[in-house]
């Protein structure tokens, strides 16, 4: 019976309607088109690069960079090669991303939980914060923080002084250990602030912008996660006499985390990518160093490949990390 049907279908169905032929044909056509396009683009690339004398080479990475980076974790000076400059930029990016992640998580969690507060005013503020920040471009917020807020800070004695922290136009000064184990606060020496730890205003503006912006998105993720926990859980806890904050901490959040963590992953990756806007506020991150390198060497393709792979690795790293966290918070059944 089956053989007859097969024989019948093989005879009567023309090849262009055959379910076995069509998929192969479609794929072959798509592959052909894509390959021709890639060949065309690569052919042009090789031809144009040859004409410009810029054929792919990585030797320039060892030449001295010739530009300085104002703020680095790794020691760097203009005499060091380009690869050291790019590495210093990458470390600067990672520094901004790490601090930004922690700050945005704290702010976002607070704002997300505030939207469940009993206090209507607090709820309103959380709502306004999220709606305000999410509807204004990050780049605009960054330049606002930098040019309007941080660059109009006063210097010298007029600077904003808190215990162990001074905020001036020349930078952010933090108390810390110096000369071994002596705790030293910021102090004014000849009208210039000195402290064990100084952060530039560029870094401050970038961090503030990233934290405030990502915080709003994380607040929404947290709010969605908490809202996904059935209301009965709250009511049961309340009827047992457990306080609001304890309910949230020990009953609701552990359940909400299952929903929150995948959302956080997305937000963390976009924070990492958004850190590339540092170039607008003059913080020398990876992108900014890459741009300078390109302007000096003209090596567009190589610089671009490096830049792209660095960000892909950074994203991948965050993803792997968050997948690990996700694995931890999932409910374990048996």
């Amino acid at each position, binding site marked *: 019976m089956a053989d007859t049907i097969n024989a019948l279908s093989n005879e009567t169905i023309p090849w262009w309607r055959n379910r076995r032929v069509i998929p192969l044909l479609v794929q072959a056509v798509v592959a052909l088109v894509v390959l021709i396009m890639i060949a065309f683009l690569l052919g042009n690339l090789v031809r*144009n690069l040859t004409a*410009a004398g810029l054929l792919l080479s990585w030797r320039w990475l060892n030449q001295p960079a010739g530009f300085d980076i104002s703020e680095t974790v790794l020691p760097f000076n203009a005499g060091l090669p380009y690869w050291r400059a790019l590495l210093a930029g990458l470390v600067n990016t990672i520094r901004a991303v790490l601090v930004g992640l922690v700050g945005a998580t704290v702010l976002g969690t607070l704002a997300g939980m505030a939207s469940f507060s009993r*206090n209507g005013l607090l709820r309103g503020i959380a709502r306004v914060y999220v*709606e305000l920040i999410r509807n204004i471009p990050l780049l*605009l917020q960054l330049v*606002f923080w930098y040019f309007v807020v941080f660059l109009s800070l006063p210097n010298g004695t007029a600077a904003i002084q808190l215990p162990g922290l001074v905020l001036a136009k020349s930078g952010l000064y933090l108390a810390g250990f110096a000369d071994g184990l002596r705790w030293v606060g910021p102090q004014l020496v000849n009208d210039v602030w000195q402290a064990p730890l100084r952060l530039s205003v560029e870094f401050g503006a970038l961090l503030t912008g990233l934290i405030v912006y990502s915080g709003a998105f994380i607040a929404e993720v947290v709010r969605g996660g908490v809202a996904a926990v059935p209301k009965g859980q709250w009511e049961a806890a309340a009827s047992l006499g457990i306080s609001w904050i304890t309910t949230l901490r020990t009953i609701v959040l552990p359940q909400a985390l299952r929903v929150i963590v995948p959302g956080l992953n997305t937000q963390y990756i976009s924070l990492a990518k958004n850190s590339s806007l540092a170039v607008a506020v003059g913080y020398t991150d990876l992108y900014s160093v890459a741009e300078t390198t390109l302007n000096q060497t003209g090596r567009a393709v190589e610089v671009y490949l490096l830049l792209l792979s660095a960000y892909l690795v950074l994203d991948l790293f965050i993803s792997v990390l968050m997948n690990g966290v996700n694995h931890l918070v999932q409910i374990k059944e048996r």
Partner: protein
Amino acid sequence: MANRPVLAPQLRRLRRELFSSPGDGVLSISLIVLIGLVAIGFLRWAFGQASWAVIQVNSTLFAVGRYPIEQQWRLWLLTALLAAATGLSWGLLRASPRPDRTGTLWPRHDRLAVVILVLGALWLPWALRLAALIQLRWWLVVALLVGCRWAAGRFAAVLPSALRRLVPLLWPALYLLGMVLISGGLGLVTVPPSEWGGLLLTLLAASFAILLCFPIGVMLALGRRSDLPLLRWGSVLYIEFIRGAPLITLLFLGQNILGFLLPGGLAPERIWRAAWVLTFFAAAYLAESVRSGLSAVPPGQFEAARSLGLSYGQTLQQVVLPQALRVALPAMVGQFISLLQDTTLLSLIGLLDLLGTARTVMANPAFLGKSAEVYLTLAVLFWCCCAALGLGSRALERRLDPHTIPSAT
């Protein structure tokens, strides 16, 4: 409100919301004081120290960049046409009768919107110190919008449905016409893209990317869910590649490397390069939204349509995509909103979009140190555009939802 005994329920509510416990009360009072201080400080600055001349003097620059003055009537015409089309679509969307209810001509929210619109039209030209002639034009544009809204709502029921169905087609037609009006051609003087700027460039880049990323995104989403391994892996590769890279690096690719990838002289104008990069960037993100919508459609829908003899294309077009896109709509509008915001990145590659124009204005020694006023204005502008998109999306969502019977508000 608090000292009128008539509002006792409100008072009780106020007490429950703000003063339910002593700690709560302390928190509320300190928050009220804080908000009051911030508000007073801001108002003092806005009406005292701030000098808004930088916005008033440069309002044309912010709106259209260096678009030649003698050609600006084309933009006015386009604005008027857009206002008319908006009014028509708005009226049909909100006030047309539906099987489950009789349409109300002016639902409550719409009345509010019209009041805000009219007040804005009265206040803004005055605040910007526009010339009387330009003020008059704005009034006419707003009057046209409200008039079309009224007419569409009033006569929607009388209109044959074939004609009503043509209204959505107005938008693509208007878009093409707008392109001609802006760039010239067909007997109009050509205005090169390098002279477009400000809000015009921002909206143009955003709308271009939004329109074109949609078909590409849908195709990518279908590709990613396809049974054909080559299509699937190709789509996955593209989507993940784009989503892994910051937009600025892609714009960088467009500006610095596209010239190498195309034969000499074929690379488009810088603005178009950036617009295409935005398009391809947004398509990858849109594909993910559409994919989530597609996975919300039960596979039985596809199988049922196929077994009824619909072709693959018909199944997608008539059965699967309408359901999938409805589910994906909120996420897609979210993407469009962030796309509109992402156009600010054009200023980083030296284009004169809204933010780029702002930077050139502030570089002018006459307006040095006026960054707070300029950035605040831009923020308000972006906020209004994005919030309006969000509101529109929610209205459309309700309109398209087959399960809820909309109330007459």
